[in-house]
């Protein structure tokens, strides 16, 4: 087995152009789904809204039980139809077919990732003892104050590692954006590979890129964790 090193070098730099796209999707998805996931986790962890949490439970189980690629196909094909229908109903002049593929990617990844995060955050919130909620209520804190001042500071050490695994998972998930005609890292490698028939080289390149990206994310989270722990020790 001999590798074409010249091709490998060229493709590596070409594929690096896909990194901002992947990070763009990751960042927007995180911005949407971290707050949403947190709200869902809180709704599901206290028992004030039984029907709503049942409904959210179904949504989460669907997202956890079906492969990402199937969800992408469904949303990518369903969304334009739904938007077109609503715009027609409400008499809004909106060009559905002129919409960027990136918007679909944001919607798809956010919908899926919110479910993952909601479940992860729920288990993170579960590490805080029940007595803490009751104590906060007894002292007279509102729900918001209770979470802001009592629960989240305690849960954050458990939440950070969970968030870290999920963020690396999200970066890996973005490799499926090629099925939405988005030129991210994987799509560029695919095109380059099939042009020159150097499949192994191209995929080795992007393996390196993904591994470095994920390890960097893990490193960043380790640093944040370290800071949070130091902060807690001072208090």
């Amino acid at each position, binding site marked *: *087995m001999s590798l074409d090193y010249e091709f490998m070098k060229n493709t590596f730099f070409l594929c690096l152009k896909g990194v901002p796209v992947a990070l763009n999707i990751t960042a927007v998805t995180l911005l949407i789904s971290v707050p949403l996931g947190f709200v869902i986790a809180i709704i599901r962890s206290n028992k004030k809204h039984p029907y709503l949490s049942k409904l959210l439970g179904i949504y989460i*189980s*669907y997202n*956890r*039980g*079906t*492969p*990402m*690629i*199937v*969800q992408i*196909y*469904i949303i990518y*094909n*369903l969304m334009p*139809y739904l938007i077109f229908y609503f715009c027609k109903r409400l008499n809004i002049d909106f060009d559905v077919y002129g919409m960027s593929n990136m918007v679909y990617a944001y919607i798809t990844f956010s919908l899926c990732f919110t479910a993952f995060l909601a479940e992860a955050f729920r288990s993170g919130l579960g590490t805080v003892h029940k007595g803490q909620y009751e104590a906060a209520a007894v002292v007279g804190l509102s729900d918001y104050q209770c979470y802001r001042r009592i629960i989240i500071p305690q849960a954050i050490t458990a939440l950070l590692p969970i968030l870290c695994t999920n963020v*690396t998972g999200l*970066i*890996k*998930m973005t*490799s*499926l954006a090629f099925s939405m005609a988005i030129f991210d890292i*994987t799509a560029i490698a695919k095109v380059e590979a099939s042009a020159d028939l150097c*499949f*192994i080289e191209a*995929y*080795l390149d*992007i*393996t390196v890129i*993904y*591994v470095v*990206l*994920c*390890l960097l994310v893990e490193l960043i989270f380790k640093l944040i964790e370290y800071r949070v722990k130091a902060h807690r020790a001072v208090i």
Partner: protein
Amino acid sequence: MKPFSLELFFKYIIKIVPFLGVTMIYVLASLLIGIVFGFFFAAAKIGNNRFFKLFAYCYTAILRSIPSVVLIFLVYYGVPAIVKPILGVDISRANRLIFIIITLSLYSIAFISEIMRSSYHAIGRGQYEAAVSNGLSGFQAFYRIILPQAFVVAIPNLGNTIISLLKEGSLGFTIGLIDIMGRATLLNAATYSNHILEIYFGLAAIYWGTSALLERLFVYLENRFSLNYKLEHTADKQAIQMEEMV
């Protein structure tokens, strides 16, 4: 675009379901391989040999950060290129199932070795020391004391692993494997994407049902093997009740 037809939805479910067998084959095969090799990797992580330890940890860290679609292609093109000069056999035309099983096994080794390591540590060294000080040999202590307890701790995580293998394996259609996902893709191509929503909703329903069933199964197993259950269903129950009454 035509409205969604329930009739077609059920028709396509019936057409896709027979291929669930292929999906289950690669899930179970890779789980089995993962358990066997994952055991050695976990042993390397727990053990004292520096080189093996570093290797096992690096393997897990790298495998966890490769997207499955990339690894599938890497295995699909890479394994035949490695095998050909060594064995002199061209396996690039072999059954695609083999490549998917190799890919998923690589993943499951990483996942399962990590699960085994964490559940071993969850049991605690005290159990091992207590067993050895009672006169059991090292192997006996592991086989009779650590393993049964670690197994129960590992059950929920094993359930998650099997579901994620099921989901990762769906990307096998990219190299032309005909499992439920591949079958749905073929049906979609044959109908010129006219029934795309019915087909993929049907497929999603099958995946959802399968993983929900697997989840239930593992919750049942966890309850069945956990300590509470045993206490409730053996003579110990009476002893506990007696104690409570006193």
